[in-house]
């Protein structure tokens, strides 16, 4: 093969190679950026959606952003106030520990239920679990990005 033609082919392939070198460099930057973003603490840890609330306070379908410690009860000093006759003043608390949510019942009169099972003491709850506090049914959902 003619060396000149061969040399031109080398240059052509070098151009194509450089296109991919650029893409590779960019993807490295993107991956590093995404990793850094994943390390940043999320502003929201979880959401609590009201499925059914006979008293209308909180209204059905409303959602609460959850802090690391969220107390539930009828008393106005709770993070989430549930206006329901079957809810105790200080009923239960959701806490975020490490990477999981935990529910604790504060010896309430009518109890707290996770997916139909009554809670005694501290139990782990997962996203998608259904909680019942008094007559109010709630669902724990993952945070919105």
């Amino acid at each position, binding site marked *: 093969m003619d060396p*000149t033609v061969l040399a031109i082919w080398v240059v*052509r392939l070098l151009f*194509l190679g450089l296109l991919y070198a650029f893409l590779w460099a960019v993807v490295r930057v993107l991956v590093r950026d995404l990793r850094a973003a994943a390390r940043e603490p999320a502003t929201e840890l979880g959401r609590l959606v009201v499925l059914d609330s006979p008293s209308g306070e909180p209204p059905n379908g409303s959602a609460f952003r959850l802090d690391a410690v969220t107390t539930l009860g009828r008393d106005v000093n709770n993070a989430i106030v549930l206006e329901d006759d079957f809810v105790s003043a200080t009923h239960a608390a959701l806490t975020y520990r490490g990477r999981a949510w935990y529910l604790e019942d504060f010896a309430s009169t009518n109890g707290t239920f996770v997916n139909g099972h009554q809670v005694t003491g501290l139990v782990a709850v997962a996203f998608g679990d259904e909680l019942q506090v008094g007559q109010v049914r709630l669902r724990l959902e993952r945070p919105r990005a």
Partner: protein
Amino acid sequence: MTPEPTSGVAVPRSPGVPIERLTIRPRFRGRELGLLLVVGLTITVGSISLGATQRLAAAGDHAPAITALFAPADLGLLATYLAALFAAHALLVLSGRRTDQVILPTVGLLGGIGLLLMERLPQSLAGNLGGLAHTQLVWLLIGIAILSALALAVRNDAWLRRYKYTWAAVGVGLLLFTFVFGRDVNGARLSLAIGPVTGQPSELLKVILVVFFAGYLSENRPLLVEESTKLGPLRLPPLPYLAPMVAMLAIALGIVVVERDLGAAMLFFLVFLLLLYVATTRVSYAVIGVAAFIAGGAVLYELFGVVRDRVDIWLNPFSDATGAGYQVIQALHAFARGGILGTGFGNGLPTIAGRPPIPALHTDFPLAALGEELGLVGILAILGLYLVLIERGLRIAASAQDEFRALLAAGLSLVIGVQAFIIAAGNLKLIPLTGITLPFISYGGSSLLANSVIAGLLLALSDRPPEARAPTPPRSRVSRLLRRSG
């Protein structure tokens, strides 16, 4: 805990209004510089590849000296373009903003590939500033200037957000003006001539539409998500709250369809649907929209001869291989000739009587030319560059401070992505061909300027104000010391 003296009740401070700092401190942009160096090297090698191929073909039997052979095709063009890119980088460094560092190099590489393609095509194809490549270079320089100006100057989005209806009115006005005073090119009335400058307002309208949609959706998102109109078992979107957007879309689509700018019509509609989905995350809206799209397409097929022609050519281009199906078939041949590695820059496209076989090669079919000369490998890399732009845009959207900025960033990057998809898929006969430009690569001032505005706005939106940055945790210094010692 002792209270801070400045945050007492006696000194009222509005926490929402950040205090503008007037001192501008340059910020080193290492990633951007590194990527730009790769871009510069790539375009230079591409130019040498083109130059060598052209010189060898021109020399005929007498093989020229190897040093004379391997030189850039047009050193002046190359140097000017690269100098402009690095000047833009220097401006961004001096401005000291924390803007995205990937967009400028990516756009620069796409523009450079386009410039090489224009150098390679017959110079008499278009352009009145000394040929195709020189005209394209002028537009690229103006585009880079607009991009850096927007990235430097846009610090506030209120002028976009607050006057969204005004912007919408301006966009519709531009289109109407084009319809009345525009010129017909290839049966479509797209371009508007003001003195010596001709432009295609639909390119600018796509930016305006995204601004309007983002402004409207960010204001009315809760209504659109919570409410819904019920029609029997169907849950439709809340029609009253959608009405302004649908009306705007209908006006834009109507005018564009009457002007027979089908590519723009498709682009507007798809971007509208995508933004609606991004804002509401309702799959049902997307399904209804796609159904409406198919129904609308069927109606247009019956009503307009242009649409029928395009679809028929798409289904069977070989039924009229020398007439209507000609350019589609030539494009397919070009892709086939290119194969996997391509023929090399300057080596493809035997011209027929001094003109390339595809008439609108520099505007509508640049991907076919690149597919022939760079092959499948090259095309995949170019599509990868568009993916990078989309990823950056969506990333900027995800980390935006408010919904307007998020929707605007998502919409702007999706416009580029959808437009690249429409024309690339059209060139490859995946969907019916509609005349629209390949962003940053195609020849044409309006397209380059509109896309530069988009890239500049994305850069501006990616800026994070200093106070929004997370405070540096104290352990970082310790860990740095540990790393240094270990």
